[in-house]
């Protein structure tokens, strides 16, 4: 299940600029800011076909070449099953990042049972506990 980035290397600024020109954000950049922006992407990661990526939550990625596929596993509360499925493809020029929430919730949780108890009627008890 472990994700992989096969290789990481440095890339010349000019090459990085060419890749950034493929992003929609390019429209917002004049020549000087484009250079500055390209400097914010100092390395290039390569992944082999069929490898699963493990994205770093704090980083932003621009697809320079190749295609990525997104798939998911989702709970279906009515059917009590999990739906697995292909979501979409990401192509060169697409900007991707890992959503923050996912970083907190990427594992299956096994529970015996859950109870929801209204706190109102329990407030005398909880107040006592706080006092103790």
């Amino acid at each position, binding site marked *: 299940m472990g994700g992989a980035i096969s290789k*990481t290397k440095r890339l010349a600024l000019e090459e990085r600029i060419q890749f*950034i020109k493929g*992003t*929609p*954000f390019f*429209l*917002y950049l004049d020549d000087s*800011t484009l250079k*500055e922006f390209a*400097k*914010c*992407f*100092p*390395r*290039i*990661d*390569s*992944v*082999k*076909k069929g*490898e*699963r*990526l493990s*994205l770093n939550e704090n*980083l*932003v*990625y621009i*697809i*320079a*070449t*190749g*295609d*990525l*596929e*997104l*798939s*998911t*596993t*989702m*709970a*279906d509360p*009515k059917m009590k099953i*999990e*739906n697995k*499925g292909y*979501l*979409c493809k990401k192509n060169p020029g*697409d*900007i991707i*990042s890992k*959503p923050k*929430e*996912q970083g907190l*919730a*990427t594992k*299956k*949780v096994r*529970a*015996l*049972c859950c109870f929801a108890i209204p706190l109102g009627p329990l407030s005398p008890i909880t107040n006592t506990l706080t006092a103790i």
Partner: protein
Amino acid sequence: MKSLQLTPKSKKMEIFVEQVETWACKDSLLLCSDEGALNSFLAAHPDLSTAFNAMLGSHIETYLSNIPFLQGLKASKLSVLATMCRYEALDANSTVFEENTPGDKLYILLSGKATVLAPQWVGNATALQQSLEWGSHNERNDDNVIVAGLKSGDYFGETAVFVNINRTSTIRTSEKSLFVTVGKRTFENFCAVCPEIKEKMQSVMKERMVSKLSSLGIPFLDGIPPASMQMLTNHVEVHETQQDEVIFREGDAGDRFYIIVHGEVKVEKKEEKEDADQDQISVPDTRSLGVLNAGNYFGEMGKYFTERQGPLLGYTNILRSSCQ
């Protein structure tokens, strides 16, 4: 203190948590940001920072959660949809899409401004089609009417992700703008793993349509109080038909009343040939009775052979007994 003894009904109740996995379909290269450098860059360029940050997941989720048929969806599911979105940037005075062109995605304006333009209103047909997406118009602009101004966070074109109708308006940027888009196929993939959203989408669309019905002067619906009109929403179905599909034939049970939202319907009547030779089998002739357009309604007679000429959306199950 006495502890409660709880017996779980199910020994193994697994709660699944949504997650997105990213795979390389082919050998790929990814430019990877340096967190510190990127933060410094965005801090030095606050104008760019707004657009760039808007592209990152958490902002998009907030925008997505404002779309009526996505409201109430779990944050983790919105987060999945956010990762599926794409971005488009356009210069000022660019056309996002033209009226009467096929639509295949919904847009959310992340930064910039745009206007919604529609031709001058020509009665029920246009009003009904446009009621799918826009409210009342307010300003004229040459041949078009400015239906609405769009700002950051506004969405449009969402009808395209669930029905096949052409765009009902033209959208033009009034300044450099960045959009997030969700394509029809992408959204279908999302619905496949998140089926509860389909029901919500149908409900929102029907509400929009019905809210406009009372103002369109349709005699059948005249005089129905707003509360009762709202009740009709529950009985309305959206029907999408293919070109040349027969909607109903003469002699069929007339249990539905249709209002055309988009497309054309051809009305034909079959007539027996009067043949002098009684021994020969008579072949019925089909006579055209005319063409119905968006805003017109039919089905209250249940008498004619009706064949449509273009894509059609209709309201059904508006029974006469409900309208009395």
